[in-house]
């Protein structure tokens, strides 16, 4: 394998990992930006997306249906959770949200185990993307290229949604000053439910897209939530662009770190986070604490 071919494949690998991480991080940061809630259940909802996607692709025999429907279902579940439970807690302190979302993570985790069992389940990539293409004579899975493309499409779509749509405008207004937005007639409650649902749906999209790489398993929530927090902390809590930059940084650090410094694979991501926080305590694009 030539050096150029190696670097090219690893860069695309890093981009594909960054895309998966971005789906997680952006949902978490949207929720935090608007509601000041650290959603501990984000990893569990990512896992739920993978399992719901497994069942949908199994029943329908179609990966694409599962890819669209699973995030919508999990998003609706998230919005319903906000509507029925979180809404009652907004006047409470932050620990109340930590406890409730942590509880949701436990409940979802156990519900997944009871529903789908404890064994990992196979979610194959769709036949269209199961093949490889050759990048400078090196075989490269088409599915990973699809992840990169999906990452770009979703990032642009969220950016346009936040900047151009009416709901995006209301989200930005509510996130800057909820009381003022409410006084001006914005239905803040509905905005919050929508954002929580969208964040959960994005986590589920990440889980569904990750399933062909890692299978749908009970353990997938535990490891991924840490990555999600690292991305959000690096990028700055509440910043959309920050979560994109954070996901790219973590994706590249993981892929190249695992190759060049495998002994430090685990520590590398945290060292990068530490270095950034020493220079910018609020994260790259976050407000100073």
């Amino acid at each position, binding site marked *: 394998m030539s050096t150029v071919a190696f670097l090219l494949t*690893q860069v695309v690998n890093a981009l594909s990992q960054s895309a998966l991480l971005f789906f997680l991080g952006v949902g978490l940061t949207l929720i935090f930006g608007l509601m000041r809630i650290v959603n501990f259940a984000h990893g569990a909802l990512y896992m739920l997306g993978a399992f719901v996607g497994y069942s949908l692709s199994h029943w329908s025999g179609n990966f694409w249906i599962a890819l669209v429907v699973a995030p919508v279902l999990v998003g609706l579940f998230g919005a319903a959770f906000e509507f029925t439970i979180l809404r009652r807690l907004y006047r409470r302190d932050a620990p109340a949200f930590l406890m409730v979302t942590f509880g949701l993570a436990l409940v979802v985790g156990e519900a997944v185990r009871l529903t789908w069992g404890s*064994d990992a389940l196979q979610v194959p*990539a769709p036949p269209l993307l199961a093949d490889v293409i050759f990048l400078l004579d090196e075989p490269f899975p088409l599915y990973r290229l699809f992840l990169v493309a999906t990452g770009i499409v979703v990032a642009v779509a969220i950016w346009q949604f936040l900047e151009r749509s009416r709901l995006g405008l209301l989200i930005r207004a509510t996130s800057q000053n909820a009381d003022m937005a409410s006084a001006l007639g914005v239905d803040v409650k509905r905005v919050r439910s929508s954002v929580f649902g969208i964040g959960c749906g994005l986590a589920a999209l990440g889980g569904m897209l990750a399933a062909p790489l890692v*299978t749908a398993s009970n353990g997938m929530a535990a490891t991924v939530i840490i990555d999600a927090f690292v991305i959000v902390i690096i990028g700055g809590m509440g910043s959309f662009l920050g979560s994109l930059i954070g996901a790219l940084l973590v994706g590249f650090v993981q892929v190249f770190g*695992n*190759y060049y410094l*495998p002994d430090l*694979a685990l520590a590398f991501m945290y060292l990068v986070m530490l270095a950034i926080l020493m220079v910018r305590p609020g994260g790259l694009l976050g407000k100073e604490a």
Partner: protein
Amino acid sequence: MSGQFRPSRRAMLKVGLAGAATVAAPAILRLSAEAQAGPIKIGMPLALTGALGSVGQQQKRGAELYAKLQNAKGGILGRPIELLIEDTAGNPANCVRKAQEMVERHNCRLFTGITLSSEALAIVPKLAEWDSIFISSDNGDGRLTAESFVPNFFRANISGPMGTRAVSLYLRTAKLEKFYALGLDYAWGHNSVQVFENEVKKSKKEFLGKVFAPTGTKDYSSYIAKIRQSGADAVFLVMQGDDNNAFLSQSRQYRLPEKVKLLTEIVDLASIRAVGDASLGLIGSSRYSFTYDHPLNNEFVELWKKEHNTVPDTFEGEQWQCMKVFEAGITKAGGIEAGKLRPGLEDIEIESVKGKVHIRKCDHQGVQQGFMVEVVKPAGFDTPIPQVIATFPGASTTPKCNTMTFED
């Protein structure tokens, strides 16, 4: 106030101690009587969640079916079996804490099912203090019966070095010359890769390098690139659970098996099911498979099917065998106290689902035959299955007493 009675501090202490003893005595007597006549409590601090959660769940199911069927027959020595099951999430500190609670709160003196070797290595130094016996059903790390051996530890399962040895014996006649190794970055992974490296070098073949991935790794593309670049004919994998599934899925997506043969220390049915055809062609040692042709195994598979409507997996079979070792030892010793059970288990030989298992006295390792399997998809099967391609006698796959090395 000279006339007032003022008890001395010593007298107060005596009264206090006497009071405490009076209060505690019934509990101590009850615990002592329970240890001799109550239910036989077997503690299972298991990794039921986390990256190796599927392994812990298998151990749980294996023990539960045994306990259910044995209790229906009157238990062991007329005493029912009670399993104390707790989740450790695969964390050694959690595992020690949960086991300590089982000892202190439930007077538990028997342990099994401690899922990770790192957890087992944290537990074994405490066994003497707890006066407890621990029979491993899955711990692979060779050190548990070598440098970290303690008299109250027994291993009913095939160890990592034994599995690796079966692979290396098989490779002696295979047309593969250059090897690379990928292991999980914890005790078992390092231990088995080291044994494999030694075996490859001894057989005058080329060992090109090794790399270790942390448990919970989701993207294996960097590791796949390393393996591909090494120029190896085969890569030896010491992986389990979610990590194994992720690696196998991704290596197939990169078409790695077309260039490099995948060898593994454990062929696990749960992984085969999880990754489907991505496991085809995988060759490795097997600690247990429902495909072993042995009358006791056939009987066990039928019992399992009746209960779970499917065939048993690797650690369900290993746990079943471990429970049978418990049963034989307790029956021979006539009790569960460590002082009695330890000699009861030493040199015991049972006929198991895998054939004969002899718990040797010198390091408490269960000597049993080694199996090599290949993952194939015969006609009539929806998913691939492990098919036995070679067996090796226990004498050739078990290391010398208290070591992890082999003479030839």
